[in-house]
């Protein structure tokens, strides 16, 4: 289907720099998720790709063709809106056939195509109904059908599941992924929900404050966040980040804890920080392994039951709370003392001045 290329694309709204110059190449058949908190510029980026928003600078290429100033109707892309934007005065069928009629597809062929798409999304029984009487999930199915019906070069989706109930969201997530694969489609998907991004994306583009923070596969952004923002934003809760001081091959943490730095990390730390200096230690909750003889000590601040596991809030000392995953069977009363170790391959270090992750060479 299509490749999408953004070259130094930027957008200003008056004095607000909504998207700072960014480069992004989306490959054919790729499912790329633009992820970030609200106001980070992800939706503006998507709208610029669609032509619903003009660029302030840069070029947008669709299959190598420069479409920067091409009318949205002639870009051959489909847009799925957060609130579906189904035409309320038309039935589901009329909604779905609407883009085909714009192209001048013969009626019989258009009808056939609509029923194919309706079968694929299992909405054939809703064809005579208006959007107003449909459930949120069904409305979104109709909206997907409308996007799918003319086999566009690319799908652009702006938080398409944001307006749905939680249980519908799970179903529709699978539905969209299925559609993407069946159509060999190129999809750009905007969301602020990192769980959704992890579940759906081939690659995730993490954005914040109008800038791309990191581009990578879900595993990359999860295990190797490029900076503190990504580390905090991905995961629920995010990565534990503890301010410490690196000296004598160990990181000195609050609460009189000393974390001996794993051997493979020492060269990287010494190169970045020198013999002694401030560093931020990062680890995911599941990297904390509760162990009576663990190197780190903390006090239980709170614990939540999540069904499959329990999430402990541990107080290292003073205000430094970290999260740790624990087995569900064991009770951890508030105030109890616990000790834990960190899985050495899941420890990350960040430079407190640049907020960037320290590069880690795999040996």
């Amino acid at each position, binding site marked *: 289907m299509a490749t999408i290329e953004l070259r130094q694309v930027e957008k200003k709204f008056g004095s607000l720099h909504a998207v700072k110059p960014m480069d992004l190449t989306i490959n054919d058949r790729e499912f790329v998720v633009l992820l970030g908190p609200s106001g980070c510029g992800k939706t503006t980026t998507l709208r610029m790709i669609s032509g619903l928003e003009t660029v302030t600078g840069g070029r947008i290429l669709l299959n190598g063709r420069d479409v920067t100033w091409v009318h949205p*109707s*002639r870009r051959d892309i489909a847009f799925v809106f957060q609130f579906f934007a189904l035409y309320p005065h038309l039935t589901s069928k009329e909604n779905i056939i609407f883009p085909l009629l*714009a192209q001048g597809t013969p009626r019989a062929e258009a009808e056939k195509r609509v029923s194919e798409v309706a079968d694929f999304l299992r909405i054939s029984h809703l064809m005579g109904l208006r959007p107003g009487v449909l459930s949120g999930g069904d409305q979104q199915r109709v909206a997907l059908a409308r996007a799918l019906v003319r086999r566009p070069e690319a799908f652009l989706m702006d938080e398409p599941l944001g307006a749905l109930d939680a249980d519908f969201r799970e179903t529709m997530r699978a539905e969209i992924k299925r559609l993407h694969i069946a159509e060999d489609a190129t999809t750009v998907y905007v969301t602020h929900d990192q769980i959704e991004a992890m579940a759906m994306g081939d690659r995730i583009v993490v954005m914040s404050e109008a800038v791309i923070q990191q581009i990578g596969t879900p595993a990359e952004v999860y295990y190797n966040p490029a900076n503190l923002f990504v580390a905090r934003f991905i995961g629920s809760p995010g990565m534990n980040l503890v301010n410490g001081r690196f000296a004598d091959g160990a990181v000195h943490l609050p609460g009189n804890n000393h974390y001996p730095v794993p051997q493979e990390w020492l060269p990287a730390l010494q190169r970045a920080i020198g013999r002694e200096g401030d560093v931020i230690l990062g680890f995911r909750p599941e990297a904390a392994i509760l162990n009576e003889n663990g190197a780190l000590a903390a006090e239980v601040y709170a614990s939540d039951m999540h069904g499959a596991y329990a999430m402990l809030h541990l107080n290292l000392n003073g205000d430094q709370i970290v999260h740790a995953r624990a087995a569900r069977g064991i009770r951890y009363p508030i105030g109890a003392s616990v000790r834990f170790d960190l899985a050495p391959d899941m420890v990350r270090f960040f430079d407190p001045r640049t907020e960037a992750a320290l590069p880690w060479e795999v040996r």
Partner: protein
Amino acid sequence: MASFEETGPRRPVIESIRVDRISPGARTWRTIRALLSLALALIILIPIFVMLITAFKSRVDITTPPPKLIFTPTLEGFVFLLTDRAIVTAGRLAEFQERAAAGEMNLFERIAFEGGLEITGPSDYVFRLRNSLIIAGTSTIASVVLGLLSAYAFSRFNVPGKGDLLFFILSTRMLPAVVVTIPIFLMYRQLRLHDTHIGMIFLYTVFNLSFSVWLLKGFIDEIPREYEEAALVDGYTRLQAFFKIVLPQAVTGIAATTVFCLIFAWNEYAFALMLTSQRARTAPPSIATMLGSGGLEWSAIAAGSLGFLIPVVIITFALRKYLLRGVTFGAIRQ
């Protein structure tokens, strides 16, 4: 006796209502309010009722004190209203009696003849009612169409000086009609628009435009832009999106605006009195002038007012479901 707060209502409550509104006191007060509203409605309806019965009374019944509620209805008033008549001369009386006996007369001719009159042609009122229809109808369509286009532009585009322009449009409504009639009268005389249909259509259109722009802008603001954006990426131009997507969804607003504009143009009195004399005179001033010419034909005046009410009643009734939403525009979403 136990208070309401102790016992609760006698029957289970099967409607959605706040607790403080089902106490016996609240119910009594609600009944009183309903009765008061009903009484007020009746008082307001009395003149319309009087007009209605007067239109069907004979000349004798109208002037009989005390006013009769039970009488033989007649169409005399309508005959007087819609026709010009002359007294049948003694020489032609026999001819008329013969025609009446043979049943060759239509209803109006027979009624006129009972009063010793013959019908010589349609009255001025017929032409004036037609003028009213032409002028009010055309100006309503013009102000709704123009209003819709400018409301759309104000709602969707970055029109330079938008706020000032909108205020200027509204400000045309701030002067009472009486204040501007004389300048407009002088202007119209110079432009030879005095006593012309086009002049009146133009004037009413301009007057209604401020209203229709503001009202329709409110409706269009409520239509999410996403619908048009969806149509754009679906392969339509902005104009196609306007006609296929915006227009059908603005129907409520268009209907409400139409009714309001029509009622204004239809009822307008001051301008019509000053700016028309013969050719383009509309119904409202002509009903009033009936009071002056010759004897007081109360039944004709009542019939004229009644006939004048009917078109507006029909249109308002036909569009009533839009009208209610239109009056509360912005407050209630579909």
